[in-house]
C-alpha cells in the first residue's frame, strides 16, 4: 500500500484547537473525517490495522490499541482470522500474562481517528517483561500481520532489534516529547473531563477532584513523572521545550521502597504508603526548634530533613514499612514539586500540569503537589492533572502513524 498521510501537522493542529467536541462524554468531532476523506478511504486504512501506539519507558511500557467499531460487512469478510483473534484477545481480557493490565476505566469509546470510529484501549506492562510480551505477541500470530508499529520512549531504540527478530516488526520511532504533547492535546480535547485539579488538598473531608477548563492552555509547564522526571514549557502544540528534569522520579520511589520495605510492585508500594506516617521518619522543623522557626517563618510541621530521624537507632526501631514507604513517597513528591515550582517561577508560568504513571493510583502525591504549588506560591500557581496520566506518549504515537504497512 502506498503511503497515506491522513493527518499532516497542519490539519492536526486544526484538529486539536477546534473546541467543537467538548459537549458530552467521549463523543468526538466530525472534522477529521471530512479532512481524511480527501486522502484515503477508510477501507484502505483498514488494511493497515491493527493500530497500536507504544511508549516503552524505563519502567513501564504503555500500549494503546484502537479497536474499530465501524467495520463494514466487506471489511469483516476480508479481515484475516489472526486480526480478529487479536482484537478479541485484547478487548475481552483485562489482564495479559502475569503482569500486563488493561486500564478499563480509561477506555475511550466512540472516538474518531483517521476517519475511523472506535474504542481506545489502554494497556500497560513492566518494561522488564518485554521478552514475555514479545513471546505473547508471537504466539498470537502478530508476526504474520503487521510489519510496522509506532513506538516512542527509550525502549523504541533499545528494543528495536528484538522487535524485528522476534515478531518481524519494524518500529516507526517517534520522539518521546513530541508524542507526549500530541497525545495530551488529542485526549484533552476529546475527553471533556480529562483535566482536573484537587480542591482543599489538605482536608480529606472536603478534598475532591474538580474539572478544570483547559480550553486556553498556554503557556503551561508540563511535568512528566515517569521513572525520571522531564519538565517542559509549552507555548503551543508545536512550541515546547524541555527545560529541566530530575532523576528523582517514580523509579526512585519504587526502587527505594523495594529496598526499604521488601515490596515488589508500585501498587504495593502505594498501598504501604497510604497506611504510613512520614513524621516518624522525617525530621520536622519542630523536631529541631521545638516549634515554628520564627525568624524565617517556617511552620513547625514542615519537613526539615527527609529521613532525618533515621540516623538514630531508637527511631529506626520505632518505624514500620508503611512509615518508610510514606516517607519515600513524600520525599520524592515534595522534591518534584519544589523543582517544578521554581522552574515555573523562573519561566513566569502559573499553570503546572503533572502527568506520568507515578501519579497512577496515587492521590497522596497529587494532593501533596496541589498543596505545595498553592502554599509556596501563595496561591498564584495551580497544579493540574489529567485522567490518562501516563498514556499520552503512546496515544501521540498512535496518532502519528501514517498507515503504511510496508
Amino acid at each position, binding site marked *: 500500500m502506498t503511503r497515506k498521510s491522513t493527518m499532516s501537522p497542519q490539519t492536526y493542529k486544526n484538529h486539536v484547537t477546534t473546541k467543537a467536541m467538548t459537549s458530552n462524554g467521549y463523543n468526538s468531532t466530525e472534522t477529521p473525517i471530512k479532512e481524511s476523506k480527501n486522502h484515503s478511504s477508510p477501507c484502505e486504512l483498514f488494511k493497515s490495522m491493527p493500530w497500536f501506539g507504544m511508549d516503552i519507558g*524505563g519502567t513501564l511500557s504503555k500500549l494503546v490499541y484502537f479497536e474499530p467499531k465501524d467495520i463494514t460487512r466487506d471489511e469483516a469478510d476480508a479481515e484475516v482470522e489472526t486480526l480478529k483473534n487479536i482484537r478479541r484477545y485484547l478487548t475481552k481480557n483485562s489482564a495479559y500474562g502475569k503482569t500486563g493490565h488493561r486500564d478499563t476505566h480509561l477506555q475511550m469509546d466512540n472516538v474518531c481517528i483517521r476517519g475511523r470510529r472506535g474504542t481506545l484501549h489502554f494497556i500497560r506492562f513492566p518494561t522488564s517483561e518485554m521478552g514475555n510480551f514479545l513471546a505473547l505477541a508471537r504466539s498470537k500470530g502478530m508476526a504474520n500481520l503487521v510489519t510496522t508499529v509506532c513506538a516512542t520512549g527509550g525502549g523504541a531504540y*533499545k528494543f528495536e532489534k528484538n522487535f524485528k527478530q522476534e515478531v518481524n516488526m519494524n518500529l516507526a520511532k517517534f520522539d518521546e516529547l513530541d508524542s507526549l504533547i500530541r497525545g495530551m492535546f488529542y485526549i484533552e480535547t476529546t475527553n471533556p473531563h480529562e483535566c482536573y485539579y484537587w480542591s482543599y488538598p489538605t482536608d480529606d473531608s472536603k478534598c475532591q477532584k474538580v474539572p478544570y477548563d483547559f480550553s486556553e492552555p498556554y503557556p503551561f509547564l508540563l511535568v512528566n513523572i515517569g521513572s525520571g522526571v522531564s519538565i517542559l514549557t509549552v507555548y503551543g502544540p508545536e512550541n515546547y521545550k524541555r527545560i529541566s528534569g530530575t*532523576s528523582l522520579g517514580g*523509579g526512585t520511589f519504587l526502587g527505594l521502597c523495594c529496598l526499604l520495605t521488601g515490596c*515488589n510492585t508500585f501498587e504495593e508500594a502505594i498501598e504501604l504508603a497510604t497506611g504510613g506516617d512520614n513524621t516518624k521518619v522525617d525530621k520536622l522543623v519542630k523536631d529541631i526548634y521545638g516549634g515554628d522557626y520564627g525568624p524565617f517563618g517556617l511552620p513547625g510541621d514542615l519537613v526539615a530533613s*527527609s529521613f532525618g530521624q533515621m*540516623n538514630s537507632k531508637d527511631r529506626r526501631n520505632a518505624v514500620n514499612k508503611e512509615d518508610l514507604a510514606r516517607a519515600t513517597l513524600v520525599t520524592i513528591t515534595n522534591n518534584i514539586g519544589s523543582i517544578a515550582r521554581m522552574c515555573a517561577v523562573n519561566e513566569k508560568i502559573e499553570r503546572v500540569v503533572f502527568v506520568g504513571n507515578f501519579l497512577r493510583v496515587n492521590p497522596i502525591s497529587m494532593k501533596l503537589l496541589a498543596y505545595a504549588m498553592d502554599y509556596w506560591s501563595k496561591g498564584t500557581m495551580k497544579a493540574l492533572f489529567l485522567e490518562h496520566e501516563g498514556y499520552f506518549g503512546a496515544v501521540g504515537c498512535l496518532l502519528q502513524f501514517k498507515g503504511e504497512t510496508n
Partner: protein
Amino acid sequence: METKIDGERTHSIKLPSAVEVFANLKNAQKFAIDIGLSLTKIAYYSTISYRKALYEDAGLGNSGERAYKVHEGNRLHFVKFETRYIENCLDFVKQNLVDVERFHGKNIKVTGGGAYKYNGLLQEKLGLIVDKEDEIACLIKGCNFLLKNISCEAFEFERQGNPEYKFQKAGPNIFPYMLVNIGSGVSVLKVESDKVFERVGGTATGGGTFWGLGCLLTKKKGFDELLQLAERGDHRNVDMLVKDIYGGDYSSQGLCGDLIASSFGKVTYYSGEGKPKFSEADLARSLLLTVSNDIGQIASLYATMHKMNKVYFCGYFLRNHPLSMHTISCSIKYWSNGKVKPLFLRHEGYVGAIGAFLYGAGQSDECSWLENYAGSSGFKESISTNLGIKVDQLEIDQAETAVTFCPLLKDPATYNPDTTDLAEDKEARDYWLQCFEESVDKFVARAIHSQPHSPTAKDRATKLKEKYINRLHYLHLQPFAYGTLTVRVLLDTIEHCMKEFDFPDPYLHQKKKENEEALTYLKSRITTLDKLEGAEKIKALILGVLSGNMFDWGAQAVADLMETTDFGFAEAQAKIPGRPWLQDNLDDWIERLKTGPPHKCAAIFVDNSGVDIVLGILPFARDLLQRGTKVILCANSMPALNDVTYPELVVTLRDAAKICKVIRHALKENRLIAMETAQAGPCLDLSRLNLDLCLAMVKHKVDLIVLEGMGRTLHTNLHAKMTCECLKLAVIKNRWLALRLGGDMYAVICKYEPPPTKTKICDVKIKMKEECPSECMESATDVCTCDVKE
C-alpha cells in the same frame, strides 16, 4: 603561654606542646559554641602575650642578655570535635580555665541544632547562661568574616582538575552572594550585605536524608563511614542511566547516555530474580549522588531565580568531601549552563561558631585578622590530642594594625601576590618543600643561638623543628591544606612557628651588628657616589641596591658565604653579573630619570638589614631626595629573618642622619618618612598593607613604587601591575630558581615598568578637568561629553 623577661624567670615559661588542644585557655574570654548534630565547635577569644625583642637596647643587658617587651595580642581559637565528646571537652575547659567563677552568670552565645539539648550541661559545667543566637544569622556573619579576612578561604573544586582547588582571594567586596547551608536539611540564603539577608528557600533533601537513608540501606551507621562506603561504590549498578532506557544517548534532547535518568531506578530490575547485582557501596554512592545532584539543581534554580552568580556551600554534609563537592559543582554548572559558580569554604565547619562568637564579641568587625598557620590544622586534617580525641583547630590572629589593598594596584580584584602556585606546579613544589626542609636546621640553630641563657631554648627549638617538618611533609601530601601553597605561605609559616615557640627575633643581634657596621661605611659610600654624575651615577646607585641585596641570611648560598668568608660590599659587587641582566630595564630607568620630571613621592619596600638598607637603599633614596622626590621607606612591622623591621629602620635612619646631611634634613622636613607595612614575612602581599601606609601613599601622591629583594619582587609581585611607575630590583640567590627563570646564580632582575599608557577615557578625563566648560564637569562622571557634542 606565659612569657616573662628572659634571664629573669625563664624557667617559668610553659612550653607549648606540639599539639595542644584548647590552647591559651587560661586567659580565655568570651566563649561561643555551635552544637551541631554530629560536630560541636567551641570558639573563644584569648589574649596572648608574646615577646618582642627590643632593638635599641639589644646587647645592653648584663652578660649579653637581650631585652624584651611583652606584647598582648588577640587571638580567636576554634576547636571542632564530635558532639558525643561534648562532656569531656567541657570538663577539660572547666579544669583549665583559671578562675572559673569569673564566668558565672555571664552569657555564652550558643547556636546550632543541639543548642536546646545541651543548655543544661553548659550551665552546669561552666555556670554560663545560654544565650541562643539564630543559626542562620550566625552562618552569614561567620561566612562574611571568613570571606573578608582569611586568604584563600573560598575555592572552586574540580576533581582531577589541575589544579583541583582554585582559591579565591579575601577582600572587602563579597556581596551579593548566595549561601547554601547543607545540614540535616538545606537552607538557601540570599546575602546582600552584612545586614541584609533572607532565607529564600530550601529543601528537605539534605545531609539528614543521606545519613538516614544510608543507615536504612546499609550496615554502616556513621556519617563518615557512609561517605567512605560511597567512595568505593558504583552507582551505575543501582541508577537507571539514559542509556539503560535508550540503549545510548537521547540525542534529540542532548542527554548523554551516562546521565542518570532515574536514581535507584535499576533496583526493581532485579526484583524476583533473586540475588541483586549491586552492593551496599553501590547504594551508598547512588544515595550520595542523588542527594548532591538534587541540592546542586535546587541551588542553581534559586540562584537563577534571584540572579546570583556565586553560591557558597557550608554545613556538615560537605566536610570538604571531594565526591560530594564534585557532584554538587557539576550539577550547578550543568543546570545553570555554567552561569553560576559553586564555591566551597576551607573552614566551612566553623562558620556558625565564628558567627555566634562575633555576635557576642561585637568589636571584632572593624579589625583585620590573619589565619595563624602554626596553630591551625589544615583542612581534612584532624589531629590527635592530649585529650585522647580527634579535633580540628583554627586560630586567627587579630592584626595589630588595620590592613587594606595598596591604593596603587592597577586591579585589586585580580591582584594575586604570588608568582608561582606550588599546588599547580609539582616540580616547584617538590623543590621548595625540600629546600625549606633542608634549611630548617639553620633557622633552628639561629633560634637557639639567640637565647643562649634560656634553659628551654633547645627544647622549644626541637619542637619547632618537629612541627615545621611535619607541616612540610603534610603539605607534600595535601598541598591545598592552607589554601594556595606558595613560597610566601611557607616563609610565613616559619615566622608563625618562631613566634609560637617564643623565638621572637632570632636575627636581632645579627641585624644590629650589621646595621652598625654598615653605617661606618656610609660616608665613604656617599662620597664615592657623589663623584659620579648622570647615567653613571644612576647606574651605580642601582648596582649598589643590587649588591646590598646580596646580604640575605634567608638565602642558603649567601648565608654560607657570610658565615665562612669575609664577605663585604665589594665582594658582593663583584658577584653581580655583567649586563645585560636576566631582566634589564636599566637603560629605561636611566632615561626616565634623565628626561622625566622628578617623581613626587617614592614608596620603597625595603628588604634586609645591614649593607642592604644602609649602603644600598639609603644612597638610592638620598639621590631621589636630592632630585626633589619625597621618599617613604616601608619596612616590615614584625621580624622575619634578617629583614629590617620598622623599629630598626627608625633607629637606623636616626643614626644615618648623623652621617648624612641630606637624610638629616629630609627627615626633619618630613620628606623622608619611615612607615610600617603590617607585614610579618619576607614576602609582600599588597592586598594586606597597613592602612596608615596606604593613606600616606595617597596623601603624598606616590608615583613610584620600588620593590626590593627576592621575596618582594620574585616570589611575590613579579607580575603585579601598578597604576604608577614601578621599579623591581632583586638578585636571585637561589640557583634552582635562577636556572628555572633562564639565568644563572646571582642573576639580576631590574624591571622598570612605566605606568600603563593612558587610555582614551583617561585622556578625556584629564582634559575634562583642565579644559572643559563647567557644565560638563558637573554632569560627567567618567567620560567627558564635550567630545560627543562636537
